[in-house]
């Protein structure tokens, strides 16, 4: 049955329309969770507000489990679902640059649009920065291409990489997430901040 567009159950144009509605859900949930606030987002790095940790990892394990169950029920063919490619070095270096951007800017790209949607001026400035950053990458692409393409590993799932069953892998991630939630709850009590 799923993915609907890959199996041609819906047309390409319906797919784009549904992308818009999925985006509405995405933006609504991010804003309701408090991801429109840079001070709330940055809180995870100082322990005073770990909402990022809780929402992000609950989201990831819900989606993982959901896909696993959908596959089990025959509702979605996982072999037709896109698995992000792994280019080891660009993934690590890109992640490091993004991490630095996160702690300086207090937003990531998705959340900055959420912040902008409710009037955060710092979010608009962050978005201007995003455009400049993408443009710099585009202009410097020839220089960065060797790093961008280095150490291509295909599209492995971590379950395949470690030789584990998918269910076991998801269980390990869930246990790790619950342990982090526990640490997060502890940190919020240990590093309290007044209302902001």
């Amino acid at each position: 049955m799923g993915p609907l567009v890959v199996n041609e159950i819906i047309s390409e144009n319906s797919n784009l329309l549904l992308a818009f509605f999925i985006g509405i859900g995405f933006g609504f949930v991010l804003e309701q969770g408090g991801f429109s606030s840079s001070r709330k987002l940055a809180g995870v790095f100082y322990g005073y507000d770990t909402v990022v940790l809780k929402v992000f990892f609950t989201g990831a394990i819900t989606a993982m489990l959901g896909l696993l169950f959908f596959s089990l029920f025959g509702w979605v063919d996982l072999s037709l679902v896109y698995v992000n490619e792994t280019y080891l070095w660009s993934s690590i270096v890109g992640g490091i640059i993004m991490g630095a951007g996160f702690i300086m800017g207090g937003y990531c790209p998705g959340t900055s649009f959420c912040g902008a949607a409710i009037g955060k001026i710092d979010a608009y400035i962050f978005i201007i920065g995003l455009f400049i950053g993408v443009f710099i990458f585009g202009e410097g692409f020839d220089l960065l291409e060797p790093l961008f393409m280095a150490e291509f590993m295909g599209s492995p799932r971590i379950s395949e990489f470690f030789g584990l069953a998918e269910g076991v892998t998801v269980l390990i991630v869930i246990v790790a997430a619950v342990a982090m939630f526990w640490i997060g709850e502890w940190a919020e009590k240990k590093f309290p901040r007044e209302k902001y």
Partner: protein
Amino acid sequence: MNTVKDPKYMNPYLAGVLLGLVVLAANFVSGRGLGASGAIKSAIVAGVETIAPKHAEASSFYNNFSKAHDGKPMHSWLVYQMLGVIVGGFLSGVFSHRLTWKVEHNPKIQSRTRLIFALGGGILFGLGSQLGRGCTSGSALSGMAVLSLGGFISMAAIFGTAFMLAYFFRKLWI
């Protein structure tokens, strides 16, 4: 700042479950996850093609992306999804009475400082998202949902770096 009343955000675990269901819906409908930085890439490619077509033609970065989208870089899944994000975020703001123009910052710093670092952070995040083939949404969250090794590496590198640098930027936030 201290007079702002409690903004009443959703319970984070409930928000997380709903976020997971949105990721699940994207995979079920379109066979792909969510994203954000990809839409900015679309806009940049479209912009450079319009303003400097010869330059865009000569660069494999602009050219490859445009060809992959039948010469219409803005006609992409992520662009429509990001338009939805803006609408969804706005509706949530209306719903919870959070629509206000403001520069949100730690009262201990000036808003100008906040804006300078927001610009710098945005530039780095934009650059890093292209190198890393996706940001927190596209690579980390959606990648992890399909158990992609690259997704887990992105997540660890983004959050690990931010944690390691947190001490040096603490004056911005605490």
